[in-house]
Each structure stands twice: as structure tokens, then as C-alpha cells.
């Protein structure tokens, strides 16, 4: 018990560090650093750190301090960590958020305290529509956009009917809605699975096969994507019905998916081989700094988030109390994104291109992702007119 008391005391002291004067830029970073999806969080952290390296560890001439917090992929924990960053650490920016439900739970805390929040991945439809805020920016997309691109591609391929499978949470519902909004053929089936606990998709795959659809579309981020592909191949459906994906195959899942992923197309706003200079530098330096790892779109979005923050702080010469000026600067998207063309809509969601990516064997016989075509240019989300901001 004495130990517990001592620990209690120590915690209170640890929490009670005096608030530093504004001679540094404080950034809170909320992502998943434990559990099976921690690889995503790690990639985001790696890319963010790399961006800071590229800026000489200084933003607008001030040293940067980043506090990383683990949301454990749980909305209530993410909310609690956001509160800690806002109230205890008094950060200037909060970045991160992989999961739509975690972001939605945390949003109010950041907005109420007028702390800038930059979503480096999650893009629930509410964020683009009625819940848009002057203090919230995205360096990713609105959830529907990527599958919309995939729907367009399926039209181009002349697919007549599709079977949709996705997880039953905010992003899953957005994704399937996205495909349906652009796909012109018939949707013969739609299945939602329990997220994140259901990992056996045998029942859904059997139904997809029985439906005789011409194509299957899925959205399974992280480890679930590995399992889905495994089971899709084992059931022999790969030879029967082609698969179209969004956020299911990326550089993190590919080493686990291996040959199973060969030839399975996906839509993405960033691919590692995009030919612009910033991207070449990002990818090359990432692979130098973290040998054996490859950056993902999660990382690219985090890298852009750091650049966005940098542009805002530089514009106000380090005086982070000038929130309006920072907001105005960020709306201009005055930085060179690793994905090429990038500008903001009225709701602070990017207007950008979406590319078709494919899995191929590269020169050294390794599996990698490759840009095949641009599916859609300057795509803007469908919810921007629900956002009251002009």
C-alpha cells in the first residue's frame, strides 16, 4: 500500500509539471501504438518524425516537442488522451487519429478548447459535413472519396454487379456508401461484420460466391485485410470473382499478404512511386532512416500534417496565439504535398487526385505497390455543402 501511495504521489507530481512558456511548439499526437494495429501508429510516428528531421527539428524557428499518446483503438481512451493533451500538456496542435470512431469521440474536446486538430487519417462524413470546424483540418480524405474512386474504376472496367463486404463501424459504413454512390451496376449483396472482433469471414465469402456477383468490393484496414485476403484465396474465390479494395492492401499489410495480393487493385490518394520531388525525398529518406520499412499512405498523410503545421506557424512567426491567422494560412494549403496537387475545400477536407494502385513484383523480386493510372482528378467530397463554413 505504501508503494501505491508513493506511486500515487509520483503520478500527481509527474502530471503537475509546470506549464512551459510559449518558447516551443507543442504537438500532441494521438494514434494507436498498442495492439495489432500499432504498426499503423508506428508508421505515422516514423513519418512525422522524419518530417521534423527535414525541418531541422524546428518549426517557425522554435523547437518542437511532440507528445505521443496511445488511443488503444478505443473511442473512450482516445477521448481521454485528447483531454490530457489539451488540459495538461496545453498543446498547440493535435495530430493523428486513425479511426473514425476515435476521432468523433475526441472532436468536441479539441474544438471546445479551440486547439487545432489535424486528422492524418480518419475522415468520417460528419467531419466533412455538419461537424466541420474552423479548428479542424484533414490531410487525408473524407471516407467516401476513396471507394467512390474505386466505384468509378469498376464502371470503367465494365463490371455489372458487385457484392460489398465491410466492417460495421463509421468508416465501414461510409466506405460502402461511397462505392454505391458512384458504381452504376447492381449491388447484389451487402454484408457488415463485427468490428474489430470478427476475423473469420467464411460466412460472408460463401454468400458472395453464392450471389454470382461479377466482383467483390471490400474495406478491411490493418490486420483484418490480411485475414480477409487469406480466406478469399483459400476458399478459391480468387479464381472465380475478382476483388476490388479500398484501404485493404498497403505497405504494412503486403508483407503479410504476400502473393495473395498480386493483381488485386486498390484506390488511393498516395502511392509510394508518385513522381514528384517531395515524394521521392520522403520515400527515399524514410527507407534510409528506417531500414526494412516502407512508408504507407498513413505515413504520407502524417508527413503532410507536419508540413501543414509548419506553414501555419511560419506564417505567424511562431506566435501561436494568432489562431485566425494560422487558420487562414492553413486554408491556403501553402506547402508541397507528397501526393502532388492538394488544396482545401470550404470544410478543410483536401481536394485531390485518386490513383489506381496494383500489386506487382518489383525489380528485386519484392512485392510492391505501383501507380497504374489516375482514376479521378481534383475529387471533392459530397458533404462539403452541408458544412456551414464558407
Amino acid at each position, binding site marked *: 500500500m505504501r508503494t501505491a501511495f508513493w506511486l500515487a504521489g509520483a503520478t500527481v507530481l509527474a502530471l503537475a509539471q509546470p506549464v512551459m512558456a510559449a518558447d516551443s511548439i507543442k504537438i500532441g499526437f494521438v494514434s494507436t501504438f498498442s495492439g495489432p494495429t500499432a504498426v499503423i501508429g508506428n508508421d505515422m510516428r516514423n513519418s512525422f518524425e522524419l518530417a521534423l528531421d527535414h525541418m531541422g527539428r524546428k518549426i517557425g524557428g522554435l523547437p518542437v516537442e511532440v507528445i505521443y499518446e496511445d488511443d488503444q483503438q478505443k473511442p473512450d481512451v482516445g477521448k481521454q488522451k485528447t483531454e490530457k493533451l489539451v488540459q495538461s500538456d496545453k498543446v498547440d496542435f493535435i495530430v493523428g487519429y486513425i479511426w473514425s470512431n476515435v476521432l468523433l469521440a475526441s472532436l468536441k474536446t479539441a474544438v471546445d478548447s479551440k486547439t487545432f486538430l489535424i486528422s492524418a487519417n480518419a475522415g468520417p462524413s460528419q467531419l466533412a459535413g455538419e461537424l466541420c470546424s474552423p479548428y479542424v483540418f484533414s490531410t487525408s480524405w473524407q471516407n467516401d472519396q476513396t471507394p467512390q474512386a474505386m466505384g468509378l474504376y469498376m464502371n470503367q472496367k465494365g463490371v455489372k454487379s458487385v457484392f460489398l463486404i465491410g466492417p*460495421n463501424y463509421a468508416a465501414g*459504413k461510409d466506405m460502402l456508401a461511397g462505392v454505391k454512390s458512384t458504381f452504376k451496376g447492381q449491388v447484389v449483396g451487402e454484408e*457488415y461484420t463485427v468490428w474489430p*472482433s470478427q476475423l473469420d469471414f467464411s460466412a460472408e465469402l460463401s454468400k458472395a460466391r453464392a450471389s454470382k456477383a461479377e466482383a467483390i468490393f471490400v474495406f478491411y484496414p490493418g490486420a483484418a485485410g490480411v485475414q480477409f485476403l487469406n480466406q478469399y484465396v*483459400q476458399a*478459391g474465390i480468387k479464381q472465380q470473382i475478382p476483388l476490388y479494395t479500398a484501404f485493404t492492401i498497403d505497405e504494412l499489410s503486403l508483407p503479410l499478404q504476400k502473393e495473395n495480393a498480386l493483381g488485386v487493385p486498390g484506390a488511393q490518394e498516395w502511392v509510394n512511386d508518385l513522381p514528384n520531388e517531395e515524394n521521392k525525398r520522403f520515400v527515399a529518406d524514410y527507407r534510409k532512416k528506417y531500414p526494412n520499412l516502407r512508408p504507407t499512405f498513413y505515413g504520407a498523410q502524417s508527413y503532410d500534417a507536419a508540413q501543414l503545421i509548419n506553414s501555419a506557424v511560419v506564417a505567424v512567426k511562431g506566435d501561436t496565439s494568432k489562431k485566425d491567422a494560422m487558420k487562414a494560412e492553413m486554408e491556403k494549403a501553402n506547402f508541397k504535398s507528397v501526393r502532388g496537387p492538394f488544396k482545401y475545400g470550404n470544410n478543410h477536407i483536401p481536394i485531390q487526385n485518386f490513383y489506381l494502385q496494383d500489386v506487382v513484383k518489383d525489380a528485386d523480386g519484392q512485392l510492391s505497390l505501383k501507380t497504374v493510372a489516375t482514376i479521378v482528378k481534383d475529387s471533392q467530397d459530397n458533404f462539403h455543402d452541408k458544412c456551414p463554413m464558407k
Partner: protein
Amino acid sequence: MLLVVEQFLNGLQFGLLLFLLAAGLTLVFGIMDFVNLAHGSLYMMGAYFAATFVMWTGNFIIGVLLALGATLLLGIVLEFAALRHLYGRDHLDHVLATFGLILFFNDAVRLIWGPAGLTLPLPAWLTVPIAIMPGVYYPAYRLAIIVVALAVALMLYLVVMRTRVGMLIRAGASNREMIGALGVNIKLLYTLVFGLGAALAGLAGLMQAPILTVQIGMGENILILAFVIIVIGGIGSIRGAFLAAIFVGMIDTLGRAFLPDLLRQMLSSTAASTAAPALSSMLIYLLMAMVLVVRPEGLFPASRR
């Protein structure tokens, strides 16, 4: 019609897998009266061992056998070092202690193998789909799970019902004090049973591994299902666990497969898509509650006091 056959097989395969996990749990629970929440961690360790050994040896069968041995050993060590001191204590002490073990194993795995998870690749002869009926294809590996699990169930039945050790196990399940008083080396028996339970959990984990990935926390959700099964079946009863496992596997799979369509007939399409996954996950618990309300000690109570 073909779909129904396929879904039945899916349910059977899932149920048999659950049986492997539940069998060890019900043995340990029935004989030592020990609530082992860390059973799911042993399931996870089995999968991690298998993924590692298969990679080292490059041979699926050898790797799997090594992994089984390793899980058995881990179970014995665990029992010997910590858990045997908890027999006879309150159930809640077991819960707290083994909850601690779950935390420990999860982070130990993260430290050793990293957070990303592993894959257990299958040899080529197991990855092909097999035509079980004209037009009905089923993954060879899932068929293999069904065969192996049925074989293990048969073996367990023979061991428990036909051998001396099995007799002691049954005696232990119905009256612990008595077989101790009769001069049976109860400590050894306990260690043995715990090791067996661990190996069964490990087997379940490594068989599931090629279908799912090998990842941290993989044992926790399935553990609750295993508890549901042993409670429905009656604690300590292998036969009860077997029947309840198949039943739960079927209900879960068939519920997921056919409930959404059924709901769509009654509700709007969007409401049905949201409600169906929730409702089909609920079925198992509904089943357990109903069984317990009608039969407060499960379907096949092993001991009648």
C-alpha cells in the same frame, strides 16, 4: 441449397475449433476447480510458437509439432511456478491472478515478436479448394481442421473413458478430496491435466492461425466463447463441451449468414445492416442465458453433489 451446405461446414469447423479450446478449459475447471482466464493466452502462444517454428524449420508439420510441445511445456511451467499455489483459493483470486497473466503475455509477445503480428503460411497442398460435392468447393485447410479436431475429440474420449488416467480425471471431476484420500498423486495429475489443457489450447490457436493472422490479444474474444461453451455444456463434461461447441459454432455462423436477410424482410435495409451483426453476435449469449435459466448447471453437469 449449396450455400446452406457450405455454411453448415463453416459452422462445424468453427464449432470444432471452439471445442479444442473449451476441452482444455473444462478439464482444468472441472478437475482443479480453477478458473483460468489465461487459457486464451496459451491459445495465442500456440499460434506464435507455430509461426516461429515453421519459419525456422521450413516444414509445416515439424513446426506444428514443436509448437505443440512448447505450449505443453509452457503450461506445465506456468502451473508449477505459479498457478498450483492458487488451487483451493477463491475463484475471484483465480480471476485476478490469471487476468494479470493475460496482461503479461500480451506485452511479453509484443516485446519479443513486435506488434505487427505474424503469418503462418500453409504448405501448398492445403491451400487448394476441394470439391466436396459437384459445384461445392470448400477450402482444404478448413476440411483438415474438421478432421484433426474430430480425431482429437475421439482420442480425448478414449483417454477419458477407457484409460486409468482418464478414470482418475473423471474421479477428480466428481470428487476431488476423495481421490486425494485414496492415495492418488494428485499434484502430478493436476500438472498433467493442466499441460494437456495448454496443449489443446495451443493446438486450437495454431490451427486457427493460417486462417486468421497470429496477433496479440487473439485469445481474448474467443476465450469468452469457450467459457460460454463449458457453461452451456456443464463444467467438467467433455461430452457437454463437445455438443455445446458444435451448437455454438453453428448458431454463430448460421446466424451471421442468414439473419441479415431475414431482418431485411422486416426492417429497412440500412437498419437491418446495422442491427444484424449485433443481433447475430447476441444469439450465443441468448442461448446461454436460456440454457442456464432452464438448467442452472448446464446441459450435462459432471458432478452431482
